[in-house]
């Protein structure tokens, strides 16, 4: 009898609830484990992708390398949720937000410890890895 092939389901670890298990960008989780947020860059045309992707539609090729998201971005907008969708009710309240790094943008959450009164559109923030109480991994924005 053939041995059952093990599938690489690392991506199940992303976020409070992950809706994806199999992806060619699974290494993203390894970078998170090491404390790094990483995007991908096409080796052929140099186009930068965040969130990372395995394939470049511009080159119709799949020659990607990882790069580290460093420095700070500008807060484009944010919203504090007082009510959570199914699976997220225990996280409430939390704020989702978007940071603009110039060549790419990052969608995520604002860190729980950032005081609400200090959050404003246009402020500089940086992205750090965050381990959730249930052992899952994501990333959050904190003051730069």
């Amino acid at each position, binding site marked *: 009898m053939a041995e059952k092939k093990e599938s690489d389901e690392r991506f199940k670890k992303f976020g409070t609830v992950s809706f*994806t298990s199999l992806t060619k960008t699974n290494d993203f989780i390894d970078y998170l484990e090491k404390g790094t947020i990483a995007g991908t860059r096409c080796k052929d045309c140099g186009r930068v992708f965040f*969130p990372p992707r395995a394939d470049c539609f511009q080159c119709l090729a799949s020659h990607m390398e990882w790069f580290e998201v460093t420095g700070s971005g500008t807060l484009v907008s944010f*919203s504090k949720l007082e009510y959570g*969708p199914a*699976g997220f009710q225990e996280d409430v309240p939390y704020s989702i937000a978007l940071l603009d790094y110039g060549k790419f*943008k990052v969608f995520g*959450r604002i860190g729980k410890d950032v005081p609400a009164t200090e959050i404003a559109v246009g402020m500089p923030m940086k992205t750090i890895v965050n381990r959730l109480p249930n052992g899952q991994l994501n990333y959050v924005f904190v003051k730069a």
Partner: protein
Amino acid sequence: MSRVAIIGVGQSEFVRAYPGSVRELAFEGFKEAMRDARLTTKDIQASVICSAPEYDKQRSPAGVFAEYLGLNPQPTFYVESLCSSSSMGLRMAYALVQSGLHDVVAVIGFQKMSEISSAESQERMGRGADIQWESPFGTMMPAYYAMYARAHMAAHGTTLEDLALIRVKASTYGQLNDKAVYRKAVTLANLSHPEDRMAGPVASPLRVGDCCANADGSSCVIVASEEKARVYCQKPVWILGLGAATTSVNLAGRDLFTGLTVAREASRQAYKMAGVGPKDIDVAEVHDCFTIAEMMAYEDLGFAKPGEGKELIRSKATYKEGHIPVNVDGGLLSKGHPIGATGGSQIRTVVLQLREEAGPIQVKSPEIGLVHNIGGVGLYGNVSIFGR
């Protein structure tokens, strides 16, 4: 090129929880449109069924509905673009008729959202966005639109009171609409009083009163060739322009947060095809799933310059008597938003307006009407222009 007409429109009442199955719900909108067009089921050459999946259990609803509505053996198929599904269905029907493949096509939109809880439906809606990279953060529709509201406020000085004025307008007309799920008055005081349910926080800066209600409902639009329209219909309403556009699903792939690029692109296409501009529009239905969505629509459609949408609502220019009446049927905010049925319901309102059969909400002698219907968080945009 010959023209394509709408010869019949119908919708069910939009309700909190429909006491029947999805095929029975679909029958309600279909029946009204068929009676309106004075057709029998043999006259319908094909049907296009539109909804967003996963709210009810029926897979492949098209075949089920075709049988229940007496549309066998004619072909049927399913179209989905989230909340703009039935506008996309209209686009398909237009193509089927304009190609000469069929002369009369029924576009049937439906949604039964009450089979699951509100938290579950928010989770489903959140998964109409990027499930790999955004949904794991706990996203939902109000929060995404709230991010647009925050950006619009920061860039243009739009206020919470401006957004509340849009809700007040919706309720003014929702009270007159016997198909609307929410028929009560909403005042500025409701939205500003901290104890009031309407002022309760959902996703800052949006409050309960800034959000449309989930609803169960169905709609039906019957599309015909010019030749058939002349035979069947006294007052055909012509499809003058159709526009449709897409953008990045993930907000990280977008550059505009004070408007929707899909609405700008779809309206550009529709205006060009119709040979008209924003000033020619006499009545409009826009996708006000949230108050900020209507504000952005004013600007994206060219009714106001970017950042100046607030002046339209402050001056009541978008009321029935104003120079560009918008959502005088109560909009999604008061009428309710049964996702797949919404576009068809918007089209129905504009068709009735152009036929001057809109009763208490009739605007004065409109010649050209517009429907703006958005799917997801500005992921899909459909703009359709109609004339009499």
